[in-house]
Protein backbone atom coordinates (compact mmCIF):
# COMPACT_ATOMS: atom_id res chain seq x y z
CA UNK A 1 0.00 0.00 0.00
CA UNK A 2 1.49 3.28 -1.10
CA UNK A 3 1.46 6.37 1.06
CA UNK A 4 2.42 4.62 4.17
CA UNK A 5 5.70 2.85 4.01
CA UNK A 6 7.76 1.34 6.77
CA UNK A 7 11.14 2.86 6.09
CA UNK A 8 11.05 4.42 9.52
CA UNK A 9 10.58 1.22 11.50
CA UNK A 10 13.65 0.31 13.50
CA UNK A 11 15.27 -3.07 13.76
CA UNK A 12 16.09 -2.81 17.40
CA UNK A 13 16.17 -5.24 20.28
CA UNK A 14 14.54 -2.60 22.37
CA UNK A 15 11.32 -2.16 20.46
CA UNK A 16 8.44 -2.37 22.92
CA UNK A 17 5.58 -1.60 20.58
CA UNK A 18 5.52 -2.12 16.87
CA UNK A 19 2.43 -1.23 14.88
CA UNK A 20 2.28 -2.23 11.24
CA UNK A 21 -0.28 -1.35 8.58
CA UNK A 22 -2.87 -0.40 11.13
CA UNK A 23 -6.26 0.19 9.54
CA UNK A 24 -9.35 1.23 11.46
CA UNK A 25 -12.64 1.77 9.69
CA UNK A 26 -16.03 2.55 11.14
CA UNK A 27 -19.07 1.57 9.10
CA UNK A 28 -21.64 4.34 8.86
CA UNK A 29 -24.97 2.82 9.80
CA UNK A 30 -26.04 0.42 7.10
CA UNK A 31 -25.16 2.73 4.23
CA UNK A 32 -22.20 0.64 3.15
CA UNK A 33 -20.01 3.71 3.54
CA UNK A 34 -17.24 3.81 6.07
CA UNK A 35 -15.11 6.32 7.94
CA UNK A 36 -11.47 5.69 7.15
CA UNK A 37 -10.26 6.81 10.54
CA UNK A 38 -6.81 5.25 10.27
CA UNK A 39 -5.57 4.06 6.88
CA UNK A 40 -2.52 1.88 7.20
CA UNK A 41 -0.02 3.44 9.52
CA UNK A 42 3.11 1.92 11.01
CA UNK A 43 5.27 3.04 13.85
CA UNK A 44 7.38 1.69 16.66
CA UNK A 45 8.30 2.79 20.14
CA UNK A 46 11.46 1.78 21.96
CA UNK A 47 11.54 0.94 25.65
CA UNK A 48 11.77 4.12 27.66
CA UNK A 49 11.09 6.32 24.68
CA UNK A 50 8.34 8.90 24.33
CA UNK A 51 6.60 8.95 20.98
CA UNK A 52 4.52 12.03 20.26
CA UNK A 53 1.63 11.85 17.83
CA UNK A 54 0.35 15.19 16.53
CA UNK A 55 -2.27 16.18 14.05
CA UNK A 56 -5.49 18.04 13.57
CA UNK A 57 -8.70 17.07 15.26
CA UNK A 58 -10.23 14.04 13.59
CA UNK A 59 -7.03 12.79 11.96
CA UNK A 60 -7.21 9.51 13.85
CA UNK A 61 -4.92 10.05 16.81
CA UNK A 62 -7.31 8.76 19.45
CA UNK A 63 -8.45 5.96 17.21
CA UNK A 64 -4.82 4.84 16.89
CA UNK A 65 -4.33 4.95 20.64
CA UNK A 66 -7.49 3.00 21.27
CA UNK A 67 -6.71 0.46 18.56
CA UNK A 68 -3.49 -0.42 20.39
CA UNK A 69 -5.63 -1.23 23.42
CA UNK A 70 -8.04 -3.14 21.16
CA UNK A 71 -10.84 -0.78 22.15
CA UNK A 72 -12.20 -1.49 19.59
CA UNK A 73 -9.86 -3.87 17.80
CA UNK A 74 -8.57 -2.58 14.46
CA UNK A 75 -9.95 -3.58 11.07
CA UNK A 76 -6.57 -4.96 10.06
CA UNK A 77 -2.90 -4.65 10.83
CA UNK A 78 -0.49 -5.97 13.37
CA UNK A 79 0.27 -4.72 16.86
CA UNK A 80 3.26 -6.35 18.52
CA UNK A 81 3.66 -5.40 22.14
CA UNK A 82 6.59 -6.79 24.09
CA UNK A 83 6.73 -9.82 21.82
CA UNK A 84 2.99 -10.54 21.83
CA UNK A 85 0.70 -10.01 18.89
CA UNK A 86 -2.22 -8.20 20.51
CA UNK A 87 -4.63 -8.54 17.62
CA UNK A 88 -4.66 -12.32 17.92
CA UNK A 89 -5.30 -12.47 21.64
CA UNK A 90 -8.55 -13.89 22.90
CA UNK A 91 -10.86 -11.81 25.08
CA UNK A 92 -9.53 -13.05 28.40
CA UNK A 93 -5.86 -12.88 27.40
CA UNK A 94 -6.41 -9.39 26.02
CA UNK A 95 -8.04 -8.30 29.25
CA UNK A 96 -4.87 -9.33 31.02
CA UNK A 97 -2.53 -7.84 28.40
CA UNK A 98 -4.28 -4.48 28.65
CA UNK A 99 -3.05 -4.04 32.16
CA UNK A 100 0.45 -3.58 30.79
CA UNK A 101 -0.67 -0.68 28.62
CA UNK A 102 -2.73 2.06 30.14
CA UNK A 103 -4.46 5.05 28.68
CA UNK A 104 -5.14 8.56 29.99
CA UNK A 105 -7.91 10.55 28.37
CA UNK A 106 -8.46 14.12 27.36
CA UNK A 107 -11.35 15.13 29.55
CA UNK A 108 -10.12 14.80 33.11
CA UNK A 109 -13.60 15.04 34.55
CA UNK A 110 -15.46 12.62 32.34
CA UNK A 111 -12.80 9.97 32.77
CA UNK A 112 -13.64 9.61 36.45
CA UNK A 113 -16.92 8.12 37.61
CA UNK A 114 -18.72 11.04 39.27
CA UNK A 115 -20.38 8.83 41.90
CA UNK A 116 -17.40 6.95 43.22
CA UNK A 117 -14.94 8.29 45.67
CA UNK A 118 -11.51 9.06 44.42
CA UNK A 119 -9.53 6.57 46.40
CA UNK A 120 -11.95 3.87 45.31
CA UNK A 121 -11.44 4.83 41.68
CA UNK A 122 -7.69 4.46 42.00
CA UNK A 123 -8.12 1.20 43.90
CA UNK A 124 -10.39 -0.36 41.29
CA UNK A 125 -7.64 -1.87 39.07
CA UNK A 126 -6.10 -3.63 42.06
CA UNK A 127 -9.40 -4.94 43.22
CA UNK A 128 -10.26 -6.23 39.75
CA UNK A 129 -7.04 -8.18 39.62
CA UNK A 130 -6.97 -9.09 43.31
CA UNK A 131 -3.45 -7.90 43.78
CA UNK A 132 -2.55 -8.44 47.40
CA UNK A 133 -4.65 -8.03 50.50
CA UNK A 134 -6.97 -5.12 50.97
CA UNK A 135 -4.49 -3.44 53.30
CA UNK A 136 -1.67 -3.82 50.80
CA UNK A 137 -3.87 -2.45 48.06
CA UNK A 138 -4.73 0.61 50.09
CA UNK A 139 -1.09 1.17 50.92
CA UNK A 140 -0.17 1.05 47.21
CA UNK A 141 -2.96 3.43 46.31
CA UNK A 142 -2.00 5.93 48.96
CA UNK A 143 1.61 5.79 47.94
CA UNK A 144 0.78 6.49 44.32
CA UNK A 145 -1.67 9.24 45.20
CA UNK A 146 1.09 10.94 47.20
CA UNK A 147 3.34 10.54 44.22
CA UNK A 148 1.06 12.41 41.87
CA UNK A 149 0.46 15.09 44.46
CA UNK A 150 -2.99 14.20 45.77
CA UNK A 151 -3.63 13.99 49.49
CA UNK A 152 -4.76 10.39 50.12
CA UNK A 153 -6.82 11.46 53.09
CA UNK A 154 -8.77 13.89 51.00
CA UNK A 155 -9.07 11.36 48.20
CA UNK A 156 -10.67 8.93 50.59
CA UNK A 157 -13.41 11.42 51.40
CA UNK A 158 -14.03 13.14 48.11
CA UNK A 159 -15.78 12.66 44.80
CA UNK A 160 -14.11 13.78 41.57
CA UNK A 161 -16.10 17.01 41.28
CA UNK A 162 -14.47 18.25 44.43
CA UNK A 163 -11.15 18.40 42.62
CA UNK A 164 -9.96 20.78 39.96
CA UNK A 165 -9.31 19.71 36.37
CA UNK A 166 -5.59 19.40 36.88
CA UNK A 167 -6.09 17.34 40.00
CA UNK A 168 -8.57 15.08 38.21
CA UNK A 169 -5.95 14.47 35.57
CA UNK A 170 -3.47 13.55 38.32
CA UNK A 171 -6.01 11.09 39.69
CA UNK A 172 -6.38 9.52 36.25
CA UNK A 173 -2.64 9.23 36.05
CA UNK A 174 -2.55 7.59 39.47
CA UNK A 175 -5.17 5.07 38.37
CA UNK A 176 -3.14 4.21 35.30
CA UNK A 177 -0.03 3.65 37.40
CA UNK A 178 -1.29 1.26 40.07
CA UNK A 179 -1.04 -1.83 37.89
CA UNK A 180 2.60 -1.08 37.11
CA UNK A 181 2.17 -0.81 33.35
CA UNK A 182 5.05 -0.76 30.90
CA UNK A 183 3.50 1.79 28.63
CA UNK A 184 1.05 4.66 28.99
CA UNK A 185 -0.84 6.13 26.10
CA UNK A 186 -1.73 9.73 26.91
CA UNK A 187 -4.56 10.94 24.71
CA UNK A 188 -4.45 14.73 24.88
CA UNK A 189 -3.92 14.68 28.63
CA UNK A 190 -3.38 18.43 28.87
CA UNK A 191 -5.53 19.89 26.10
CA UNK A 192 -8.37 20.73 28.48
CA UNK A 193 -6.19 22.35 31.10
CA UNK A 194 -5.01 25.85 31.85
CA UNK A 195 -1.51 26.65 30.67
CA UNK A 196 -0.21 26.80 34.22
CA UNK A 197 -1.75 23.44 35.12
CA UNK A 198 -0.70 21.98 31.80
CA UNK A 199 2.93 22.61 32.70
CA UNK A 200 2.47 20.85 36.05
CA UNK A 201 0.99 17.77 34.42
CA UNK A 202 3.68 17.61 31.73
CA UNK A 203 6.39 17.86 34.39
CA UNK A 204 4.67 15.18 36.43
CA UNK A 205 4.58 12.82 33.47
CA UNK A 206 8.28 13.39 32.85
CA UNK A 207 9.08 12.61 36.48
CA UNK A 208 6.92 9.51 36.63
CA UNK A 209 8.37 8.28 33.40
CA UNK A 210 11.85 8.22 34.89
CA UNK A 211 10.75 6.81 38.17
CA UNK A 212 8.55 4.01 36.89
CA UNK A 213 10.62 3.34 33.76
CA UNK A 214 7.67 4.00 31.53
CA UNK A 215 7.33 4.19 27.79
CA UNK A 216 4.96 6.92 26.68
CA UNK A 217 2.84 7.59 23.65
CA UNK A 218 1.79 11.20 23.92
CA UNK A 219 -1.04 12.37 21.70
CA UNK A 220 -1.87 16.06 21.25
CA UNK A 221 -2.62 18.68 18.67
CA UNK A 222 -0.28 21.29 20.10
CA UNK A 223 3.16 20.70 18.68
CA UNK A 224 4.82 22.85 21.33
CA UNK A 225 3.61 20.59 24.13
CA UNK A 226 4.39 17.42 22.21
CA UNK A 227 7.84 18.64 21.34
CA UNK A 228 8.62 19.30 24.94
CA UNK A 229 7.87 15.81 26.15
CA UNK A 230 8.73 13.59 23.16
CA UNK A 231 11.88 12.00 21.84
CA UNK A 232 10.36 11.21 18.49
CA UNK A 233 7.27 12.65 16.82
CA UNK A 234 4.91 11.25 14.21
CA UNK A 235 2.75 13.80 12.41
CA UNK A 236 -0.60 12.46 11.27
CA UNK A 237 -2.97 13.81 8.68
CA UNK A 238 -6.31 12.26 7.82
CA UNK A 239 -5.46 8.73 8.89
CA UNK A 240 -1.92 8.70 7.54
CA UNK A 241 1.51 9.43 8.90
CA UNK A 242 3.19 12.21 6.95
CA UNK A 243 6.38 12.82 8.86
CA UNK A 244 8.44 11.05 11.52
CA UNK A 245 11.47 12.56 13.13
CA UNK A 246 13.26 13.31 16.37
CA UNK A 247 11.43 16.14 18.03
CA UNK A 248 14.15 18.77 17.86
CA UNK A 249 14.81 17.99 14.25
CA UNK A 250 11.15 18.22 13.35
CA UNK A 251 11.01 21.74 14.69
CA UNK A 252 14.27 22.82 13.08
CA UNK A 253 13.65 21.26 9.70
CA UNK A 254 10.04 20.50 9.04
CA UNK A 255 9.89 18.73 5.70
CA UNK A 256 6.20 18.10 5.15
CA UNK A 257 4.08 21.11 4.17
CA UNK A 258 1.49 20.08 6.72
CA UNK A 259 4.04 19.98 9.53
CA UNK A 260 4.94 23.51 8.63
CA UNK A 261 1.28 24.52 8.91
CA UNK A 262 1.05 22.91 12.32
CA UNK A 263 4.21 24.66 13.46
CA UNK A 264 3.10 28.04 12.29
CA UNK A 265 -0.33 27.70 13.89
CA UNK A 266 1.16 27.69 17.36
CA UNK A 267 0.64 31.12 18.83
CA UNK A 268 3.95 32.65 19.77
CA UNK A 269 3.81 34.36 23.14
CA UNK A 270 5.60 37.38 21.79
CA UNK A 271 3.78 40.30 20.19
CA UNK A 272 6.86 41.47 18.31
CA UNK A 273 6.87 38.31 16.22
CA UNK A 274 4.51 38.96 13.35
CA UNK A 275 1.86 36.27 13.15
CA UNK A 276 3.04 33.91 10.45
CA UNK A 277 0.35 33.15 7.97
CA UNK A 278 1.09 29.71 6.66
CA UNK A 279 -2.24 28.57 8.00
CA UNK A 280 -4.29 26.58 5.56
CA UNK A 281 -7.85 27.33 4.74
CA UNK A 282 -10.74 25.03 5.26
CA UNK A 283 -11.22 21.83 7.12
CA UNK A 284 -9.55 18.54 6.43
CA UNK A 285 -11.53 16.60 3.82
CA UNK A 286 -13.98 14.00 5.02
CA UNK A 287 -12.43 10.71 6.05
CA UNK A 288 -15.39 9.01 4.36
CA UNK A 289 -14.06 9.76 0.90
CA UNK A 290 -10.43 10.82 1.31
CA UNK A 291 -8.82 12.45 -1.74
CA UNK A 292 -6.82 10.29 -4.11
CA UNK A 293 -3.05 10.56 -4.16
CA UNK A 294 -1.64 12.53 -1.27
CA UNK A 295 -4.39 13.15 1.23
CA UNK A 296 -3.14 16.67 1.89
CA UNK A 297 -3.27 17.74 -1.76
CA UNK A 298 -6.51 19.81 -1.70
CA UNK A 299 -5.01 22.11 0.92
CA UNK A 300 -1.35 21.91 0.04
CA UNK A 301 0.35 24.96 -1.47
CA UNK A 302 2.93 22.74 -3.22
CA UNK A 303 0.51 20.24 -4.72
CA UNK A 304 1.29 19.05 -8.23
CA UNK A 305 -0.42 16.63 -10.59
CA UNK A 306 1.71 13.88 -9.23
CA UNK A 307 0.33 14.56 -5.77
CA UNK A 308 -3.21 14.13 -7.03
CA UNK A 309 -2.59 10.70 -8.48
CA UNK A 310 0.28 9.04 -6.70
CA UNK A 311 0.39 8.52 -2.98
CA UNK A 312 3.75 9.45 -1.42
CA UNK A 313 5.65 6.91 0.68
CA UNK A 314 7.68 7.55 3.80
CA UNK A 315 11.36 7.88 2.92
CA UNK A 316 14.41 8.94 4.84
CA UNK A 317 15.66 12.40 3.98
CA UNK A 318 18.14 12.66 6.80
CA UNK A 319 19.22 10.06 9.34
CA UNK A 320 16.17 9.41 11.49
CA UNK A 321 13.98 11.91 9.63
CA UNK A 322 11.28 10.47 7.40
CA UNK A 323 8.71 12.22 5.25
CA UNK A 324 5.89 11.10 2.98
CA UNK A 325 5.77 13.88 0.42
CA UNK A 326 6.70 14.27 -3.23
CA UNK A 327 7.89 17.83 -2.87
CA UNK A 328 9.07 18.26 0.71
CA UNK A 329 10.41 21.53 2.06
CA UNK A 330 13.78 19.97 2.69
CA UNK A 331 15.41 16.77 1.54
CA UNK A 332 14.71 17.03 -2.19
CA UNK A 333 12.08 15.69 -4.53
CA UNK A 334 10.92 12.15 -4.12
CA UNK A 335 12.43 9.81 -6.70
CA UNK A 336 9.92 8.85 -9.35
CA UNK A 337 8.74 5.37 -8.69
CA UNK A 338 8.26 3.19 -11.70
CA UNK A 339 5.55 0.66 -11.25
CA UNK A 340 6.70 -2.79 -12.08
CA UNK A 341 3.43 -3.98 -13.58
Amino acid at each position, binding site marked *: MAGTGKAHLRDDQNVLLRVEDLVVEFPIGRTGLKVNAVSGISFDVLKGETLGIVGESGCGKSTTG*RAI*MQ*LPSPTSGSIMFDGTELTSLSGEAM*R*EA*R*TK*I*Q*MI*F*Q*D*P*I*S*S*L*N*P*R*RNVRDIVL*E*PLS*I*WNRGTKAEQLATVDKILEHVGIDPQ*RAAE*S*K*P*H*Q*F*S*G*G*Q*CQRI*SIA*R*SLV*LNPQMIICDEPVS*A*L*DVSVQAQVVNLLEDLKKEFELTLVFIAHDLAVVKNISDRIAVMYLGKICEVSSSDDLYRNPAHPYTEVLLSSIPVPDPTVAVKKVSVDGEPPSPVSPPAGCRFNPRCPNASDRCRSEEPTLREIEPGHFVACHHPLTGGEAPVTVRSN
Partner: protein
Amino acid sequence: MSTTSVTPAPEDTIVRKKLGFGFWLCVTWIGLMAFIAIFAPVLPLKSPTANFLDSARGRPPYAPSWSHWFGTDKDARDVFSRSMYGARISLTVGFTAITAGFLIGGSLGVISGYYKGWIDRVSSFGFIVLLSFPSLVLAILLTSLIDRNLLTVSLVLGLLSIAPVGRLARAATLQYADREFVLAARQIGATNRRIIIKEILPNVAIPMSSLALLGMAVAVVAEGGLAFLGFSVQKGITWGGLIQLGSDASKTLQDSPWIAFFPILMLFLTVLSLNFAGDRLRTFFDVKETTL
Protein backbone atom coordinates in the same frame (compact mmCIF):
# COMPACT_ATOMS: atom_id res chain seq x y z
CA MET B 1 -17.77 19.27 28.39
CA SER B 2 -15.08 20.26 26.04
CA THR B 3 -13.47 23.30 27.55
CA THR B 4 -11.29 24.33 30.39
CA SER B 5 -13.91 25.58 32.76
CA VAL B 6 -12.62 23.47 35.54
CA THR B 7 -12.72 25.75 38.47
CA PRO B 8 -10.54 24.48 41.27
CA ALA B 9 -12.62 23.30 44.14
CA PRO B 10 -11.70 24.94 47.40
CA GLU B 11 -10.76 22.50 50.12
CA ASP B 12 -13.80 22.94 52.26
CA THR B 13 -16.59 22.89 49.73
CA ILE B 14 -18.52 20.08 51.32
CA VAL B 15 -21.76 21.82 52.06
CA ARG B 16 -24.53 19.43 52.92
CA LYS B 17 -27.59 19.79 50.78
CA LYS B 18 -30.80 19.39 52.72
CA LEU B 19 -33.78 17.31 51.79
CA GLY B 20 -36.05 19.71 53.61
CA PHE B 21 -39.05 19.48 55.90
CA GLY B 22 -41.54 18.74 53.12
CA PHE B 23 -39.62 15.66 52.11
CA TRP B 24 -39.59 14.24 55.60
CA LEU B 25 -43.28 15.00 56.01
CA CYS B 26 -44.02 13.04 52.86
CA VAL B 27 -41.78 10.19 53.96
CA THR B 28 -43.59 10.11 57.29
CA TRP B 29 -46.93 9.88 55.54
CA ILE B 30 -45.73 7.12 53.22
CA GLY B 31 -44.22 5.32 56.19
CA LEU B 32 -47.46 5.61 58.12
CA MET B 33 -49.44 4.24 55.21
CA ALA B 34 -47.02 1.36 54.80
CA PHE B 35 -47.23 0.63 58.52
CA ILE B 36 -51.01 0.60 58.41
CA ALA B 37 -51.02 -1.52 55.29
CA ILE B 38 -48.83 -4.12 56.93
CA PHE B 39 -50.30 -4.13 60.40
CA ALA B 40 -53.96 -3.32 59.73
CA PRO B 41 -55.26 -6.66 61.08
CA VAL B 42 -53.50 -6.25 64.42
CA LEU B 43 -54.26 -2.58 64.85
CA PRO B 44 -57.27 -1.59 66.97
CA LEU B 45 -59.38 -0.86 63.93
CA LYS B 46 -63.02 -1.66 63.52
CA SER B 47 -63.69 -4.59 61.26
CA PRO B 48 -63.84 -3.32 57.70
CA THR B 49 -66.56 -5.78 56.75
CA ALA B 50 -68.82 -5.63 59.78
CA ASN B 51 -72.13 -3.77 59.55
CA PHE B 52 -72.57 -1.17 62.22
CA LEU B 53 -76.31 -0.71 61.89
CA ASP B 54 -77.55 1.83 64.35
CA SER B 55 -81.29 1.80 64.66
CA ALA B 56 -81.25 5.20 66.35
CA ARG B 57 -79.78 6.83 63.22
CA GLY B 58 -82.08 5.14 60.79
CA ARG B 59 -80.87 3.90 57.44
CA PRO B 60 -77.18 3.98 56.56
CA PRO B 61 -75.02 5.59 55.19
CA TYR B 62 -74.25 7.50 58.36
CA ALA B 63 -72.36 10.79 58.23
CA PRO B 64 -69.01 11.06 60.05
CA SER B 65 -69.44 11.00 63.80
CA TRP B 66 -67.45 10.29 66.91
CA SER B 67 -67.93 6.54 66.57
CA HIS B 68 -67.33 6.49 62.82
CA TRP B 69 -64.75 9.19 62.05
CA PHE B 70 -65.13 8.94 58.30
CA GLY B 71 -68.80 7.87 58.44
CA THR B 72 -70.10 4.62 57.06
CA ASP B 73 -71.13 3.43 53.64
CA LYS B 74 -74.65 2.35 52.78
CA ASP B 75 -74.05 -1.09 54.22
CA ALA B 76 -73.09 0.67 57.46
CA ARG B 77 -69.45 -0.38 57.15
CA ASP B 78 -66.87 1.90 58.74
CA VAL B 79 -65.24 4.07 56.02
CA PHE B 80 -62.23 4.85 58.20
CA SER B 81 -61.21 1.30 58.74
CA ARG B 82 -62.03 0.42 55.13
CA SER B 83 -59.77 3.25 53.95
CA MET B 84 -57.00 1.88 56.16
CA TYR B 85 -57.47 -1.63 54.86
CA GLY B 86 -57.60 -0.18 51.34
CA ALA B 87 -53.99 0.97 51.74
CA ARG B 88 -53.08 -2.70 52.01
CA ILE B 89 -53.98 -3.70 48.53
CA SER B 90 -53.43 -0.39 46.84
CA LEU B 91 -49.90 -0.02 48.15
CA THR B 92 -49.04 -3.67 47.66
CA VAL B 93 -50.19 -3.51 44.08
CA GLY B 94 -48.27 -0.28 43.53
CA PHE B 95 -45.13 -1.66 45.13
CA THR B 96 -45.18 -5.03 43.43
CA ALA B 97 -45.98 -3.53 40.08
CA ILE B 98 -43.14 -1.05 40.17
CA THR B 99 -40.70 -3.62 41.52
CA ALA B 100 -41.55 -5.96 38.67
CA GLY B 101 -41.37 -3.12 36.18
CA PHE B 102 -37.98 -2.07 37.48
CA LEU B 103 -36.50 -5.52 37.61
CA ILE B 104 -37.53 -6.33 34.07
CA GLY B 105 -37.61 -2.91 32.41
CA GLY B 106 -34.60 -1.59 34.26
CA SER B 107 -32.33 -4.48 33.44
CA LEU B 108 -33.53 -4.64 29.85
CA GLY B 109 -32.88 -0.91 29.51
CA VAL B 110 -29.42 -1.01 31.05
CA ILE B 111 -28.41 -4.05 29.04
CA SER B 112 -29.62 -2.66 25.76
CA GLY B 113 -28.07 0.72 26.43
CA TYR B 114 -24.75 -0.85 27.33
CA TYR B 115 -24.40 -3.57 24.73
CA LYS B 116 -26.31 -1.79 21.96
CA GLY B 117 -26.49 -3.85 18.75
CA TRP B 118 -29.26 -6.36 18.18
CA ILE B 119 -30.24 -6.63 21.85
CA ASP B 120 -30.96 -2.95 21.80
CA ARG B 121 -32.91 -3.12 18.57
CA VAL B 122 -35.09 -5.96 19.81
CA SER B 123 -35.84 -4.47 23.19
CA SER B 124 -36.38 -0.99 21.83
CA PHE B 125 -38.90 -2.43 19.42
CA GLY B 126 -40.56 -4.23 22.32
CA PHE B 127 -40.80 -0.99 24.27
CA ILE B 128 -42.36 0.80 21.35
CA VAL B 129 -44.94 -1.95 20.91
CA LEU B 130 -45.82 -1.80 24.59
CA LEU B 131 -46.03 1.95 24.55
CA SER B 132 -48.24 2.15 21.52
CA PHE B 133 -51.11 0.35 23.29
CA PRO B 134 -53.25 2.73 25.30
CA SER B 135 -52.24 1.44 28.69
CA LEU B 136 -55.64 1.50 30.32
CA VAL B 137 -57.18 -0.47 27.47
CA LEU B 138 -54.36 -2.99 27.65
CA ALA B 139 -54.78 -3.29 31.38
CA ILE B 140 -58.53 -3.84 31.09
CA LEU B 141 -58.00 -6.33 28.31
CA LEU B 142 -55.53 -8.35 30.31
CA THR B 143 -57.33 -8.16 33.62
CA SER B 144 -60.59 -9.22 32.02
CA LEU B 145 -58.93 -12.35 30.70
CA ILE B 146 -57.38 -13.54 33.91
CA ASP B 147 -58.23 -14.41 37.42
CA ARG B 148 -57.95 -11.03 39.09
CA ASN B 149 -56.01 -11.54 42.27
CA LEU B 150 -53.40 -9.37 43.94
CA LEU B 151 -50.47 -10.88 42.08
CA THR B 152 -51.96 -10.84 38.61
CA VAL B 153 -53.20 -7.28 38.85
CA SER B 154 -49.78 -6.20 40.11
CA LEU B 155 -48.06 -8.01 37.29
CA VAL B 156 -50.30 -6.46 34.69
CA LEU B 157 -49.52 -3.00 36.04
CA GLY B 158 -45.87 -4.00 36.24
CA LEU B 159 -45.96 -5.01 32.60
CA LEU B 160 -47.23 -1.57 31.74
CA SER B 161 -44.35 0.08 33.54
CA ILE B 162 -41.69 -1.95 31.74
CA ALA B 163 -41.56 0.23 28.67
CA PRO B 164 -41.30 3.66 30.27
CA VAL B 165 -38.87 2.43 32.90
CA GLY B 166 -36.83 0.56 30.31
CA ARG B 167 -36.60 3.53 28.04
CA LEU B 168 -35.45 5.79 30.80
CA ALA B 169 -32.89 3.25 31.97
CA ARG B 170 -31.66 2.84 28.42
CA ALA B 171 -31.34 6.57 27.89
CA ALA B 172 -29.51 7.04 31.17
CA THR B 173 -27.19 4.15 30.36
CA LEU B 174 -26.44 5.45 26.88
CA GLN B 175 -25.46 8.72 28.42
CA TYR B 176 -22.84 7.03 30.55
CA ALA B 177 -21.80 4.04 28.47
CA ASP B 178 -19.61 6.10 26.16
CA ARG B 179 -18.05 8.14 28.91
CA GLU B 180 -14.36 7.86 29.24
CA PHE B 181 -14.55 6.46 32.73
CA VAL B 182 -16.24 3.38 31.28
CA LEU B 183 -13.47 3.08 28.74
CA ALA B 184 -10.99 3.58 31.54
CA ALA B 185 -12.58 0.74 33.49
CA ARG B 186 -12.39 -1.50 30.48
CA GLN B 187 -8.73 -0.82 29.94
CA ILE B 188 -7.85 -1.75 33.49
CA GLY B 189 -9.44 -5.09 32.76
CA ALA B 190 -12.93 -4.78 34.24
CA THR B 191 -15.42 -7.27 32.86
CA ASN B 192 -18.68 -6.11 31.35
CA ARG B 193 -20.58 -7.31 34.37
CA ARG B 194 -18.35 -5.39 36.70
CA ILE B 195 -18.62 -2.27 34.58
CA ILE B 196 -22.39 -2.45 34.59
CA ILE B 197 -22.56 -2.98 38.32
CA LYS B 198 -19.82 -0.66 39.49
CA GLU B 199 -19.69 2.10 36.92
CA ILE B 200 -23.07 2.30 35.19
CA LEU B 201 -25.56 1.29 37.86
CA PRO B 202 -24.59 3.87 40.49
CA ASN B 203 -25.08 6.58 37.91
CA VAL B 204 -28.30 5.18 36.50
CA ALA B 205 -29.84 4.05 39.78
CA ILE B 206 -30.22 7.49 41.32
CA PRO B 207 -32.38 9.09 38.67
CA MET B 208 -34.21 5.77 38.53
CA SER B 209 -34.86 5.64 42.26
CA SER B 210 -36.80 8.85 42.14
CA LEU B 211 -38.66 7.43 39.18
CA ALA B 212 -39.52 4.44 41.33
CA LEU B 213 -41.42 6.64 43.74
CA LEU B 214 -43.12 8.51 40.91
CA GLY B 215 -43.86 5.21 39.19
CA MET B 216 -45.38 3.81 42.34
CA ALA B 217 -47.64 6.84 42.45
CA VAL B 218 -48.73 6.14 38.89
CA ALA B 219 -49.31 2.47 39.68
CA VAL B 220 -51.44 3.34 42.70
CA VAL B 221 -53.51 5.70 40.60
CA ALA B 222 -53.77 3.13 37.81
CA GLU B 223 -54.97 0.52 40.25
CA GLY B 224 -57.51 3.02 41.46
CA GLY B 225 -58.66 3.53 37.91
CA LEU B 226 -58.96 -0.19 37.27
CA ALA B 227 -60.82 -0.72 40.50
CA PHE B 228 -63.11 2.17 39.70
CA LEU B 229 -63.98 0.45 36.46
CA GLY B 230 -64.34 -2.86 38.27
CA PHE B 231 -61.26 -4.50 36.82
CA SER B 232 -59.05 -4.73 39.84
CA VAL B 233 -58.60 -7.33 42.51
CA GLN B 234 -61.93 -9.09 42.87
CA LYS B 235 -61.86 -9.86 46.54
CA GLY B 236 -60.69 -7.30 49.01
CA ILE B 237 -60.79 -3.60 49.61
CA THR B 238 -58.88 -1.10 47.51
CA TRP B 239 -59.04 2.69 47.42
CA GLY B 240 -60.25 2.61 43.86
CA GLY B 241 -62.97 0.15 44.80
CA LEU B 242 -64.04 2.32 47.72
CA ILE B 243 -64.21 5.39 45.53
CA GLN B 244 -66.26 3.48 43.04
CA LEU B 245 -68.67 2.34 45.75
CA GLY B 246 -68.94 5.89 46.97
CA SER B 247 -69.85 7.22 43.57
CA ASP B 248 -71.70 4.40 41.86
CA ALA B 249 -74.83 6.43 41.57
CA SER B 250 -74.85 10.18 41.27
CA LYS B 251 -77.21 10.23 44.24
CA THR B 252 -74.65 8.60 46.51
CA LEU B 253 -72.00 11.15 45.71
CA GLN B 254 -74.41 13.99 46.33
CA ASP B 255 -76.08 12.75 49.47
CA SER B 256 -73.19 11.05 51.22
CA PRO B 257 -69.96 12.48 49.75
CA TRP B 258 -67.87 11.18 52.66
CA ILE B 259 -67.99 7.62 51.37
CA ALA B 260 -65.88 8.54 48.36
CA PHE B 261 -64.17 11.58 49.81
CA PHE B 262 -62.05 9.90 52.45
CA PRO B 263 -60.59 7.21 50.22
CA ILE B 264 -59.93 9.91 47.62
CA LEU B 265 -58.15 11.99 50.23
CA MET B 266 -55.98 9.05 51.26
CA LEU B 267 -55.16 8.24 47.68
CA PHE B 268 -54.43 11.86 46.91
CA LEU B 269 -52.16 12.42 49.90
CA THR B 270 -50.27 9.22 49.27
CA VAL B 271 -49.73 9.91 45.59
CA LEU B 272 -48.76 13.49 46.34
CA SER B 273 -46.24 12.35 48.93
CA LEU B 274 -44.75 9.80 46.57
CA ASN B 275 -44.42 12.38 43.82
CA PHE B 276 -42.99 15.05 46.04
CA ALA B 277 -40.52 12.76 47.75
CA GLY B 278 -39.42 11.35 44.41
CA ASP B 279 -38.85 14.78 43.03
CA ARG B 280 -36.86 15.98 46.01
CA LEU B 281 -34.77 12.85 45.93
CA ARG B 282 -33.89 13.48 42.32
CA THR B 283 -32.62 17.00 42.91
CA PHE B 284 -30.87 15.87 46.04
CA PHE B 285 -28.83 13.22 44.31
CA ASP B 286 -28.08 15.33 41.27
CA VAL B 287 -24.33 15.33 41.72
CA LYS B 288 -22.47 18.10 40.14
CA GLU B 289 -19.95 16.68 37.79
CA THR B 290 -18.04 19.87 37.45
CA THR B 291 -17.86 22.95 39.51
CA LEU B 292 -19.35 25.46 37.08
